[in-house]
């Protein structure tokens, strides 16, 4: 395979925990813990996980909004965490935020909002107007929207403006942080269609963060599942959804509310997990998921599991999958694979 566009190596972020009378540092919260993944040009990489799993922190580190504690983020071979590469980063990577209402300045017209990144590049005013009009056209908004203000726009239209603004500097990578979670499904479908089209026509690469796994199934090419700051499973979207290996991924998929019996049949048969994701400040020893895992056995509480390679692109971190562990899940996966093949 070709060189990756983005490579994240051993990325970690620890936030200090302050306590006591004088706010001394009394500990740390490991929000992101030793995360590795690669991103190839033109693909959509999905990051899934519950709140507190670290998906937004990873996005913020790639954008340079938060400095990593450890690790490197290599973009075409250059480390974005180095200050010297800040200009590379701001030109190559852009973000579309979750809430279109609060990411646009209410006192600026739409045209002014989209022009901000262009002005920062000292582009001539005439040229800016021309580019704003072209960007609005790319996100399928009429040119006269340049003179409107955010309050005159619907949620879906505001998100289109946010996408236009992200596209203004002609980035190669766009991080989409829950881009449609504030929108209705009928509007969400339109935005996803637009992102799909733009991705294809401009050759964009996306990191897609979402808690909506059904949406992820339809948009991402590869998916990484995060639990308490660690990647527990990575794989091509189809493999991951059809033969999920990690018990956490299986429980997540089993809990998705779906709208047809055909989809019910696609979900792994896993009991509803008890309890909630523990606080990242107080992580369980061994495998972080063992406190809620329906299949946990003796080693899970003691030893941190290694990454197990299930096939060329499918990786998971679980004792059950290790060659010397109980092969229960692995066997079930094999049967499922044979069934779907047969």
């Amino acid at each position, binding site marked *: 395979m070709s060189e990756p566009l983005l490579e994240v190596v051993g990325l970690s972020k620890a936030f200090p925990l302050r306590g006591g009378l004088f706010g001394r540092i009394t500990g740390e919260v490991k929000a992101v813990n030793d995360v590795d993944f690669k991103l190839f040009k033109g693909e959509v990489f999905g990051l899934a996980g519950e709140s507190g799993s670290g998906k937004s922190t990873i996005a913020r580190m790639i954008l340079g909004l938060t400095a990593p504690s450890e690790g490197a983020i290599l973009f075409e071979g250059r480390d974005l965490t180095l200050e010297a590469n800040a200009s590379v980063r701001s030109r190559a990577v852009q973000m579309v935020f979750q809430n279109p209402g609060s990411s646009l300045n209410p006192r600026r017209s739409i045209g002014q909002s989209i022009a901000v990144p262009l002005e920062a590049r000292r582009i001539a005013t005439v040229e800016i107007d021309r580019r704003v009009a072209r960007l609005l056209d790319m996100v399928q908004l009429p040119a006269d929207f340049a003179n409107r203000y955010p309050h005159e726009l619907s949620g879906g239209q505001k998100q289109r403006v946010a996408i236009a603004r992200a596209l203004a500097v002609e980035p190669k990578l766009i991080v989409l942080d829950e881009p449609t979670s504030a929108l209705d*499904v009928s509007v969400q479908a339109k935005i996803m269609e637009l992102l799909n089209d733009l991705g294809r026509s401009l050759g964009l690469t996306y990191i897609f963060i979402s808690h909506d796994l*059904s949406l992820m*199934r*339809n948009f991402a090419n590869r998916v990484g599942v995060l639990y308490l700051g660690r990647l527990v499973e990575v794989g091509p979207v189809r493999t991951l959804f059809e033969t999920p290996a990690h018990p956490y991924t299986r429980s997540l998929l089993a809990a998705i509310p779906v709208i047809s019996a*055909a989809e019910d049949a696609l979900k792994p048969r896993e009991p*509803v*997990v008890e309890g909630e994701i523990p606080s990242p400040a107080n992580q369980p020893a061994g495998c972080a998921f063992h406190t809620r895992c329906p299949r946990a056995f003796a080693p899970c509480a003691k030893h941190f599991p290694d990454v197990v390679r299930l096939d060329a692109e499918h990786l998971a971190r679980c004792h059950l999958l290790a060659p010397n562990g109980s092969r229960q899940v692995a066997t079930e996966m094999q049967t499922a694979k044979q069934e779907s093949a047969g």
Partner: protein
Amino acid sequence: MSADPLLSVRSLSVDFSAYGRRSQVLRDVWLDVPAHRHVALVGESGCGKSVTMRAIMGILSTPPARIASGQIWFDGRDLLAMRPRERENLRGTAMSMVFQDPMTSLNPVFTIGDQMGTILKYADRRLGRVRGRAGRMARVHEVLGQVRMPDPERIAQSYPIMLSGGMRHRVLIAMALLSEPRLLIADEPGTALDVTTQAQILKLLRDLVEDRGLALLMITHNLGVVRESADTVYVMYAGSVVEHAPTAELFAHPSHPYTRALIECVPKLSGDTTFRGIEGSLPDYSAPPPGCRFSPRCPLATPACGRPPVDRKVGADHGAACWQVEEASA
């Protein structure tokens, strides 16, 4: 099913006035919520589901809202014809509500036990019941147990910030159960939670309906949640009920063009979703189309749709307010 439903809304129309313009927000909304049943009212933002819920609970601000017509029957009596005092006594006792956001509905500076005790004290006063502080705390611990909190005594002594999102949601449900209501109205239950926690909350609500014989009206925008938990569904669009059916029937044979388009929009776990969406947007409520309010966006619209649609029977307990659907002969 021959007995009268516990809650029955009939031809409810609500207007809003703002800046001299009158908007006809609800138009002839109707629905039935029987005891032992979980009923879902589903629709996208701005369809009027929250206004309907507020009108039922009697917490609609009037003005700007005005109930133009209709009746809301609860246990055989019309809530809209009651004296305000009488209605006040029902709220939070016989009918109560589970709010959406625990962070804004729980007071951060009082313990869970204090907040629930206060609610119970006023509910008791309204019902003319006498119960001491110890009696109230016993009841608080009892309902916290009913919502499957592991250690009710400890939870009662906790402040909201000490609890996780799922536990705060359970506290809100417990609060609503304090006075043994017969009707529970839940606003988007669990939608702000993660899927695994949401599944736990939905299971709890379903068990409450089954074990305690509650009538539950759930307001939601999530069709997956509806299918996994409700018995009956009412679909709202632009201030009217456009389709209603038993849950399995609705998802197997959606009839109204809006319901069908909405179901199409939901991403499928099989991965073969074509993102098409619905063209256009909600009508302007101050100048809505005269007939079917979905007709400007409807692929099947004909001139006949210029008249207000009536509910047509398309199957057993299944109706759709659309001129284009084939009426069942039975």
